Structures are given as structure tokens and as C-alpha cells.
């Protein structure tokens, strides 16, 4: 009997302890989910407010969706189709220009970004301050779209693909400079220290310790930039900065929509082709 009461007591106190823990857990959980719901609610309210504000200010109506889609479908069927392929020869030179702009833009961006990336990465930069300056320059270049650069450069270089090439190159530094700096910052410091310990110069450290670890990311990002460039080069012509956009724009301005349809199809084909080639090159190098 005595033993039994002792056991019951032990069981009872155990049970109370467990219940207390469960209560505690439950309370903590409900606090967290309350907090979570509050955060979600807050973000939801902000998003909703933004949407309502935008809706009112742009005087948008849901009916625009249907009429807009109806109009564009109508436009596609009646005006754009069928594409007029007789203008293909006229599009040849613009296509070459577009490819040249994208490629030279990539080369320019890669060269500038190598310098900017090394100087912006905290572990290869000669000084903290230099790294900060180059990081800031790169972020500035990234935040301004290529078309804005194009607009300014067309004033300096005149109409033509030179302005477009440089615009692509400059805005590319914004993307590649950051990517390169991030890759360099993530490399294994052990190898760098090892090479440094042999008394190697700064350039030797870059070549022997940094480059081998950096190469894969370098190739992948540069090729990715080429993919992006072809899209940018295709639209830079809309502001007169060379390439197929110039021809497309003049077709549209002259209401030659069937010619324009050919231009759009060519842009589509170029993007697909360049993406295919870059993926092949990526596979064969890496």
C-alpha cells in the first residue's frame, strides 16, 4: 500500500510537470503565431495599400484588361500576321550589328568588371576604402538601366551601334562587377594565405591563388551576361543606339506591322540561338 501511494504521488507530480511544460509550449507557440500573423498582416496591409493607391492614381479599370487583351489579340491577327519575310535581307545588317553590340559589350564589361571586382572584393582590395568606393560605383552602375545609359551616350557618340555597345558595357559592369567581387570574397582564404606565405607579389597571389577558384564563376557569369546583352541590344535601337531595334522602330513608325512581325521573330530567334550557344560553350569549358 505504502509503495503504491508513493508511486501515485510520483506519477501525479510527473503528470503535473508535463502538463506545465505543455502549457508553456502552447503559450510560446501561440505567442509566435500571433507575432507571425501580425507581421504577415502588416505586410499584407502595406501591399494592399500600394495596390489601391496605384489603381486609383493610374485610373486603371479591370475592363482595360479584357479590352487590352482583346485589342492586342486583334492587332496580332489582323495587323501583325502574317510576317512579311521579304524584308529579311534588310534585317541582315541590323542582326549583325546587334550581335556585335552584345559581344563587344560583354567583352568590355568583363574587362572592366575584372578590375572593378578585384578592387571591390574585401579580400583582394589593396585597402578597405578602395573596396568601399568600387562597391559604390558598381551599385550605382547597376541601378541605372542600360537604356538610360544609351540615351545619354547617343548624345555623345551620335546615333549608331557605338553608343549602344558602350551602354551595354557600362551597365554590364554593374552586374558583373558585383558578381565577380562576391565570388572572389567567397574563395578559400587558405590557398591565398599559402601563396602569400611564399612571398608572392599581389599579382602573383591573384594569378596563383585567386584565379583557379574564380574561373568557373567567371565563365558562367560572363556567358549569362551575353544572354542578357542580346535582349538589351535588341531594344537599344528603339532610342537610336544601333542594332535591330532601329529597323523595328522604323517599320512600326511607318505602320509596316508585318515587317515589324518579322523583326520580332528575328529577335526571338536570336535570343534562343545565343542562349543555345552560350550553354554549349559553358558545358565545353566547365
Amino acid at each position: 500500500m505504502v509503495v503504491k501511494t508513493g508511486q501515485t504521488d510520483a506519477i501525479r507530480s510527473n503528470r503535473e510537470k508535463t502538463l506545465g511544460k505543455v502549457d508553456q509550449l502552447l503559450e510560446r507557440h501561440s505567442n509566435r503565431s500571433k507575432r507571425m500573423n501580425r507581421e504577415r498582416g502588416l505586410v499584407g496591409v502595406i501591399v494592399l495599400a500600394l495596390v489601391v493607391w496605384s489603381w486609383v492614381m493610374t485610373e486603371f479599370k479591370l475592363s482595360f484588361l479584357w479590352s487590352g487583351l482583346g485589342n492586342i489579340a486583334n492587332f496580332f491577327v489582323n495587323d501583325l500576321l502574317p510576317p512579311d519575310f521579304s524584308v529579311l535581307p534588310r534585317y541582315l545588317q541590323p542582326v549583325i550589328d546587334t550581335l556585335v553590340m552584345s559581344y563587344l559589350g560583354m567583352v568590355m564589361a568583363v574587362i572592366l568588371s575584372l578590375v572593378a571586382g578585384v578592387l571591390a572584393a574585401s579580400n583582394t582590395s589593396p585597402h578597405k576604402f578602395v573596396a568601399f568606393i568600387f562597391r559604390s560605383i558598381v551599385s550605382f552602375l547597376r541601378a541605372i538601366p542600360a537604356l538610360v545609359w544609351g540615351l545619354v551616350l547617343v548624345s555623345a557618340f551620335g546615333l549608331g551601334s557605338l553608343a549602344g555597345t558602350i551602354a551595354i558595357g557600362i551597365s554590364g559592369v554593374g552586374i558583373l562587377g558585383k558578381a565577380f567581387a562576391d565570388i572572389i570574397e567567397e574563395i578559400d582564404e587558405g590557398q591565398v594565405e599559402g601563396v602569400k606565405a611564399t612571398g608572392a607579389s599581389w599579382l602573383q597571389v591573384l594569378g596563383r591563388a585567386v584565379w583557379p577558384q574564380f574561373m568557373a564563376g567567371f565563365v558562367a557569369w560572363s556567358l549569362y551576361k551575353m544572354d542578357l546583352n542580346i535582349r538589351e541590344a535588341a531594344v537599344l535601337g528603339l532610342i537610336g543606339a544601333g542594332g535591330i531595334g532601329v529597323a523595328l522602330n522604323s517599320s512600326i513608325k511607318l505602320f509596316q506591322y508585318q515587317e515589324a512581325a518579322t523583326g520580332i521573330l528575328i529577335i526571338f530567334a536570336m535570343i534562343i540561338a545565343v542562349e543555345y550557344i552560350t550553354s554549349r560553350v559553358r558545358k565545353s569549358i566547365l
Partner: protein
Amino acid sequence: MKKNIKVWLVAGVAFLLFILSLAQLGLSRERLSAAYDRGMVIVDSMIPPSVSNPSNVATAALESLHVAVLGTLFGVVFSLILAVFAARNLTPHFTVSVAVKSFAAFVRAVPALIWAILFIIAVGLGPTPGILALAVNSIGMLVKVYAEAIEEIDIGIVEAMKSTGASPMQLVFQGVLPTMMSALVSWSIFRFDINIRYAAILGIVGAGGIGWELVRASRMAAYSEVMGITLVIFFMILVVENVTRLLKKRLDLASMETVRS
């Protein structure tokens, strides 16, 4: 060894292309030095940057923001609907999936600015073509990533719900949406960051927003104004990026705590 030869081959072809491209571009010393002189004059007149009509520029910048918000909203809504049909594990038939995915691939490959031009022809100038262009361009990307997110969800959940006799609507709203929520949120925010950049330049072709102010200033050769508006675009994008990052962090923090408890 074979790899090495390949790398050198690629490098050789790349160099050859570089030379050919340079020849195509037709660089000459006179042209470059003329451009340099003109460039210096322009840079000179850019400083100090100015904005002659601040309220106009501010309205235009806000219009860009509005276009980006609504473009993203409609892009997200339509992409969600289309993604259900595009995802291999939910689609009513695999041909539907292939059709929706190819449509998205085509839409994605045509740049946003060209969509804007087409919509301007179809519905006229103003913010509406910009909103529609961004929505369509967003659909191209979001259908793909949403469908991939849906394809990654645990098929067991879907099967279990189906066996309880859930309707397709219930399947989507109670099984699929909650599981893909975090992918949905992060991709939509990512797309908004892209759209605000596009919204800033859509005005260049006449689709509303601050791009139009920029073109106007550059046509009048008012370079200090061009620089001023460029800076406004820069700050607009910077602010939007930081705000979305902050919102995303708050959401992540909240969901991380549920995982831990």
C-alpha cells in the same frame, strides 16, 4: 588534356570574333576623339544636376511605381492561374502543360519594351500599355517558376486530398498554395524588383512614367536635367529595393520562427 584544347579553341574563336566585331563597329581615331570632345562637353553641362520641374518629375516617378505595382499584381494573378495548368502534376492533360509552357517561353523571349510598343499600338499611350506590357512580360517568367514550384511539392499531399474527394479548387487553395507560399512570395518580390526597373524606362517609348521625362530632357539637350532625372531613377530603384528587402526580411523572420517552434 582534351579539356585544355577545348578551352584554347573557345578562347581562340572568342578572340577572332572580338577582332571581327571591332572591325564591324568601324572605330576610327577621328570618330573617337570627336566623341570624346562631345562627351566632355556633355559631362561638363551635366554638373550640377538639376530638375527644373520637381513636381512633374515626382509625379512621373510615382507613376512608374504605380505601373510596376499593377503590372506585378496582374502578372502574379494570371501566372498563378496559368501555372496550375502548366505544372505537370496538376495539369488536366500533358498537352495543356506543354502549350502553356511554350506560350510562356515565347512571351518571355520578347523583351518588355517591345511588348510596351505593341500595347501602345493596341491601346494607346499612357500608363495602361505599360501595366499590360509588364504583366505580360512577368507572366513569361512567373509561369515558369511557379510551375516549377508546384511540381516540387509533395505529391503525397495532393494524392491524400484527392482521395478525400477534394474538388480541384480545394486542391489548389488548401493543398498547393500553402505549400508553395514561400516560393510564391520570394519570386513575386524578385519580379517586382525587375518591374520597377522596366517601369523606369517604359516611358522612353511612351508607356507612362519617368522615362518620358528623361527622353524629353535629352531631346532638348538639357543635360543637367538628364543627369537630375537619372539620379531620381537611381534613388527610386534604391528605395524600392530596400523596402522590398525589408518586407521580405519581416516575412522570413515570421516564418522562420514557426519552423523553430
